[in-house]
């Protein structure tokens, strides 16, 4: 009789304690649909959907005011079917999209390599010597302030049609970022690590290879990203004026053909291409080069920090709850089993 009484006594307490433990994780692990909606992926997907709606709405409004606009305002279907044709290789332009981007990419690659090489040398000089810094500083700022349209026009005048103009434009657009980043990298040199290397008698070559270069890597990487993003734009402008082929020239081809969907479609292909590049080349490279960084995703860290104490207190209260009851009703495991039994018998 007394045994069943204690069971009944402990019953509610037992079910209450696990509930507090379960509740928190359950609140964290909300309904799958809610979770998907709340995720950053949903936010990312929502953006193009909103853009598409605004686009359709804009066409409707504009054509209702001015019906002839139908000819110049391409619909999403026109643009996407154009893009699909381009991607499957069916095009009215002299070259298909892959050849075109191949040509542009080669120019961008050559231009970036030159910008990185020269920029690194100048940046190192500026970071190490005040005189070199004074010599270049104003000019770097001036080159940085120059619109790349000006470079593109100048280069097409100076070098005519062909590869040289676009490549020089890429170099001139990208080089200030490389210079400034490398200079900052040198200025942020980890002197305490150099002292460490010296105290242990590490050779100069090893110090450059294992201390200086890795400490410059984040800066070089940032420089390359900027040079890529801005050089890419400069390149297209240069190709519009001074190219016989390439992405910029092809956009102009569609412009000359009065095909608005062609211009927008090609520009979108261009964006897709740059994003893929960013995602698959730069993100991979940065993941590889900076694998030593403890936590790349800052959002995850914040989430963990805020969640951890909550879970800890939940288990702590559950423990203390069990503890107090254990003193009145005897050993814990037995009591736990008993509680489960009562619950099961209630269910049945």
């Amino acid at each position, binding site marked *: 009789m007394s045994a069943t009484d204690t069971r009944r006594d402990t019953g509610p307490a037992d079910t209450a304690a696990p509930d507090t433990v379960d509740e928190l994780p359950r609140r964290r692990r909300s309904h799958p649909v809610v979770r998907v909606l709340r995720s950053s992926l949903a936010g990312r997907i929502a953006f193009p959907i909103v853009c598409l709606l605004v686009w359709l709405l804009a066409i409707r409004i504009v054509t209702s005011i001015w019906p002839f606009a139908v000819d110049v305002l391409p619909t999403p279907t026109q643009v996407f079917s154009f893009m699909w044709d381009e991607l499957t290789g069916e095009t009215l332009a002299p070259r298909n999209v892959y050849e075109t981007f191949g040509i542009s990419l080669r120019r961008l690659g050559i231009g970036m390599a030159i910008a990185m090489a020269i920029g690194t040398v100048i940046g190192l000089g500026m970071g190490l010597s005040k005189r070199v810094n004074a010599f270049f500083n104003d000019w770097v700022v001036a080159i940085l302030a120059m619109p790349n349209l000006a470079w593109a026009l100048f280069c097409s005048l100076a070098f005519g049609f062909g590869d040289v103009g676009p490549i020089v434009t890429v170099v001139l657009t990208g080089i200030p970022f490389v210079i400034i980043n490398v200079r900052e990298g040198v200025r942020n040199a980890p002197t305490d690590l150099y*002292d*460490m290397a010296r*105290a242990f008698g590490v050779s100069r070559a*090893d110090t450059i290879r294992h201390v200086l270069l890795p400490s410059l890597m984040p800066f070089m990487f940032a420089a390359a990203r900027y040079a890529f993003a801005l050089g890419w734009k400069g390149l297209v402008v240069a190709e519009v004026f001074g190219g016989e082929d390439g992405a910029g020239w092809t956009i102009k081809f569609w412009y000359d053909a009065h095909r608005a969907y062609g211009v927008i479609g090609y520009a979108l292909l261009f964006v897709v291409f740059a994003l893929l590049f960013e995602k698959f080349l730069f993100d991979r490279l940065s993941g590889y080069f900076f694998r*030593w960084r403890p936590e790349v995703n800052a959002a995850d860290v914040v989430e963990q920090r805020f969640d951890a104490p909550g879970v800890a207190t939940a288990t702590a209260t559950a423990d203390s709850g069990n503890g107090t009851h254990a003193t009145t009703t005897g050993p814990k495991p037995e009591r736990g089993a008993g509680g489960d039994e009562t619950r099961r018998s209630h269910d049945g």
Partner: protein
Amino acid sequence: MAEITVRNLHKEFGVGADKIVALDDVNLDISGHVFVSIVGASGCGKSTLLNILSGIETPSHGQVQITEDGRPAAKGYVFQAARLLPWRTVMDNLLFVQKDRSEQTRARCQRYLDMVQLGDKGRKYPGELSGGMQQRVGIARAFSTEPDVLFMDEPFSHLDAITARSLRAELQNMWQETRKTVIFVTHDVGEAVELSNRILVFAKGGHLADDIDMPLPFPRDVADPEVAVAKANVFRTFEQIGALAVS
């Protein structure tokens, strides 16, 4: 046996009105397998002395000679912060300061990592370790070059009291085992009394104010009355020379 000889050592920073004398006519002889602590308030030149001894800085004038059986001694250094290369793994950090990368060297590095209880962390990056663990790696790195003289610059001052205590015990064991000459800079008198055979007290203006022998046997327990008395004595010396006036 390691011999450290310092004669008329003088070091100043800056020029003209900004001139600061960090070390003023320091003379010193250290020999054998001893644990020497350098104590003093901040700004009394103890870290400068260590940096000159280790070769990171050069003296304004005066001579420093550190030999092991007549040849130049090999040196190791443990810094206040661990100063690990964040882009290399723990094991690679140890290998970075070695003369060669042979299998033997690797085995030796592994042995010292085991000694600081980080034997399984060789493949981790420093960023994945706690501050205390990083400092342990720093200590293992210094020992792994098997130096004749080991310099330590307030290696435990950035750590919490409990971690510092356990690392002190570890350091004591490693020193007993390897019998290196250790030059240990600290501002913590208790730490100096617990660890060392000899305590050099530096006063403001960078001169060596006192040289105290600590013959008590190791390991020393801070609760032991003899250790407490020794600690009180060192503090009294501090008061006498006015080294505590600023702190």
